[in-house]
């Protein structure tokens, strides 16, 4: 490689490396500020206090979903496994919304309740046919029952 090309290559690589490092530092610095959502644990530990409105993310707690018979109002609890937060929402829910489904709600805290203005369902990365999902669900249920049966009763 002749000297001119070598010089050009070094220059180009240096600039790209410099921009890369700058971008990496920016991304690293934004890590905390770029959170799209807060989990119930984070909210309960007071991290939501800085925001007027924020996004709450987690799973819809199994058995917590209650629909109002006369309006579009729904009440449910969002959980991250450690803590739950009650949520109320009035409006149309997306197709994927159900219990044990990951959701992201936008809204604000009103006392100990989160009042949502928008509820989005987060899709997971799994794609499978219905038959397979049912078969897996059955296997899963069996496993649960089996595991429960094995547990020693006090």
């Amino acid at each position, binding site marked *: 490689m002749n000297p001119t090309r070598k010089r050009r290559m070094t220059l180009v690589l240096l600039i790209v490396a410099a921009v890369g490092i700058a*971008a990496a530092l920016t*991304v690293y610095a934004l890590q905390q500020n770029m959170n799209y959502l807060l989990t119930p644990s984070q909210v309960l530990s007071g991290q939501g206090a800085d925001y007027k409105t924020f996004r709450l993310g987690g799973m819809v707690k199994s058995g917590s979903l209650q629909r109002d018979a006369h309006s579009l109002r729904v009440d449910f609890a969002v959980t991250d496994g450690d803590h739950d937060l009650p949520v109320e929402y009035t409006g149309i829910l*997306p197709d*994927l919304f159900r219990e044990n489904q990951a959701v992201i709600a936008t809204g604000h805290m009103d006392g100990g309740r989160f009042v949502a203005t928008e509820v989005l369902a987060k899709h997971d990365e*799994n*794609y499978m*046919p219905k038959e397979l999902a049912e078969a897996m669900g059955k296997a899963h249920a069996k496993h649960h029952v089996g595991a429960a049966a094995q547990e020693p009763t006090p």
Partner: protein
Amino acid sequence: MNTLTLWLHKLGSPPTFYRFAGAVRPWLLAAALLAGAIGLYGGLVLAPADYQQGDAYRIIFIHVPSAWMGLFIYACMAAAGFVALVWRIKLAEIVAMECAPIGAAFTFITLVTGSLWGKPMWGTWWTWDARLTSELVLLFLYLGVIGLYYAIEDRRKAARAAAFLALIGIINLPIVHFSVQWWNTLHQGSTVRILGPSHIAPSMLWPLLAMALATKLYFGASLLGRARVALLAQEGGKDWVRALAQPEGSRP
């Protein structure tokens, strides 16, 4: 010099590339159409409905291959741009610049199909999460490269300036890819993985891979065709172009 390097050197010369691209392009296009037909039939007819999303998930057979192509073409453009900047090869400049509109089109398709899917599934057309935002930045980078290329009069200077922008923008590629891991996003994580098991049933995976192959082949065909036209436009008046035009010109 071994045979491969010699062949690459020869391919760098415009007349050789012009002939080579003209010969290869129809085959690539035919293969792309075949793979695309198989992939679409497999995806839209043969593949079973998803357990949660029903038939609406079938948009992934367009959305995911397009998204992969958006990233892949950008990497190709940056690599060709690097060669153009360091070695000043005219063909590399043309290849880099002709990548941009194809990549922009794929990125646009990704954003539109994602939006169409997002409304019924997530409940919103658009949200400013890290994946969606970085994908939009990718589209703007493509448009910036195209815009810069056509804003400068001198074709070769324009190509080098735009190639530089393309090279800087490569920073965005890992951000797009890893955004779903680095931050909490509404967009789900990667379904298909090169390392480790994919989170998709085999009956849905093969049409997806067929579509990925089809889009790659189409990109090859489209790029060769565009590069041929751009070469003719830039090399107009040179002997080899004149020789190409002669037989047609001498006809009555």
